[in-house]
């Protein structure tokens, strides 16, 4: 039996099923990223980063003469914005790790379906992103005077889930671009922080020049944050549903684009040989 199993005689080619590829990438692939390898580090991302970032901006607001409402505004904004660490930055960085470890080439020659592969890679980051936002909002309530009525919980939950989904989709999109680049760290860093300026995290988007507002509208974080703020403020279902649709669309578009980019950059990377370069 063992001899038969170990045989190298050519077999009928088989391709892994969607779910098998999805599961393998959901469970195994995140572990290639250092941040996901250890539970204590995940807890650091979930519990420490939101707190320190919120404290930082709360004091900046205070120094600038902002009152309680301005501090609450920035607290909610940063509670949600820290989702970028587990979604955008870490997901994007996975591409780098694959290159450094030399596993990217093996991944690209495997017959695994790219869609399942990509979706699978988003699963754990989505869960961590959900936890990050939940913890951040808890800090906002406990430490920064934000009020979240219980009645708003269902709407808030939908907004948070959709935001996590959209942000991870955006991270996957950047990961696709990173396939072609020497490193994804630069891209990851840009989109880790750009939301703080362009997504209405610390001040309303309307304070920015129109050109920057348009740029902000292209980021899933902007729509996710708007939906979360609307849910917390007890917005009616109608306007909230419009924002949900916008968040969902930004996530779906990101994943769709990432698939297309993955295919495009996979070809480019093969042509230029950048797969093995880091």
């Amino acid at each position, binding site marked *: 039996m063992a001899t038969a199993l170990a045989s190298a005689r050519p077999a009928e080619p088989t391709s892994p099923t969607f779910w098998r590829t999805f599961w393998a990438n959901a469970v195994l692939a995140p572990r290639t990223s250092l*941040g996901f390898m*250890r539970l204590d*580090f995940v807890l650091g991302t979930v519990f420490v980063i939101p707190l*320190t970032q919120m*404290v930082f901006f709360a004091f*900046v607001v205070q*120094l600038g003469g*902002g009152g309680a409402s301005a501090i609450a505004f920035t607290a909610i904004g940063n509670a949600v914005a820290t989702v970028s660490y587990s979604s955008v930055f870490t997901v994007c960085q996975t591409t780098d790790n694959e290159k450094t470890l030399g596993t990217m080439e093996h991944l690209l020659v495997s017959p695994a379906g790219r869609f399942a592969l990509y979706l699978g890679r988003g699963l754990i980051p989505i869960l961590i992103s959900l936890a990050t936002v939940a913890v951040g909002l808890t800090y906002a309530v406990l430490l920064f005077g934000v009020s979240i009525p219980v009645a708003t919980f269902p709407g808030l939950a939908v907004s948070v889930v959709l935001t996590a989904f959209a942000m991870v989709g955006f991270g996957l999109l950047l990961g696709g671009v990173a396939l072609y680049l020497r490193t994804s760290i630069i891209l990851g860093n840009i989109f880790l922080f750009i939301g703080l300026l362009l997504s209405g995290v610390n001040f309303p988007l309307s304070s920015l020049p129109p050109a920057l507002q348009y740029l902000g509208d292209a980021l899933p974080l902007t729509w996710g944050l708007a939906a979360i703020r609307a849910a917390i403020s007890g917005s009616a279902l109608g306007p909230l549903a419009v924002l949900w649709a916008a968040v969902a669309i930004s996530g779906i578009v990101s994943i769709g684009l990432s698939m297309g980019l993955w295919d495009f950059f996979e070809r480019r990377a093969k042509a230029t040989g950048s797969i093995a370069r880091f």
Partner: protein
Amino acid sequence: MTMATVVGVRRTRVTAASLRLAFLQFIADPQWLVPSMIAPVIFGLVSYELFRGAGPYFLTYAILGAGMMSMWGQTLYGSGWATGQDREFGTLEPTIQAPAPYLYVVLGRIVWNVVAGLFGGLIVYVVVVVAAGGPPALPNPLAFVLLFLFVMVTLACVGIVFAAAYVYTRFAGFIQNIGEFAFYVGTGCMFPVVLLPFWTNPIALLFPPTWALDALRYVSIPGYVGFGWGWGWDLVGAVATTAIYAGIAGTVFHRVERHVLEVGDLSDY
């Protein structure tokens, strides 16, 4: 090949070689300056926006804070990050195995990162000033420049000690990511430390940049009240704490090197 007569390795030569290597690697791939620039530029713009309307000297707060973040990021973490890359590329083992003290290899990188940090600070300045429509008034330019240079020295000294963490553990980069904001908050990068709860102040004063930045604000923001003891004592505190960091750097590196030789994880990343 005949065996060489063994001569001592000059520390200045090691530092110069390390500086040169850092420069060559930068030239080979200058885009690596970008990651350390992104956060400070964005934080500078966000803070400027949040400070707008609060008073004429708040632009200085935003520029100083973001500029410091750039230089801190580059100097404190850049050098450690280079050691993290040494782990990743497998070059930490041959470097440690060489007879040159690793501390002086790190020192060379720090010097380079000070230069890169200054460049980063300049970019932050230009971006925030363009966004604000003009530069802030600087009441005492000479004192500012001197103190500014001194701040760089304090950062370099803390950077050396921090870099030891990257030799100590391959997880230093991740720990740094988690602790980065805490450091910026704790040392009053964008706002005076006295705004923080009182119990945090003694911790903040363990870091030389806290003192130096307080002194820098005294000379650049009229009416500034930080710790309340004036820029002179700030300077004394900064010099004293910097001396402590410089003094313990050698011991810290020696112990860390001993530790990694015991653990045997120099090639892990």
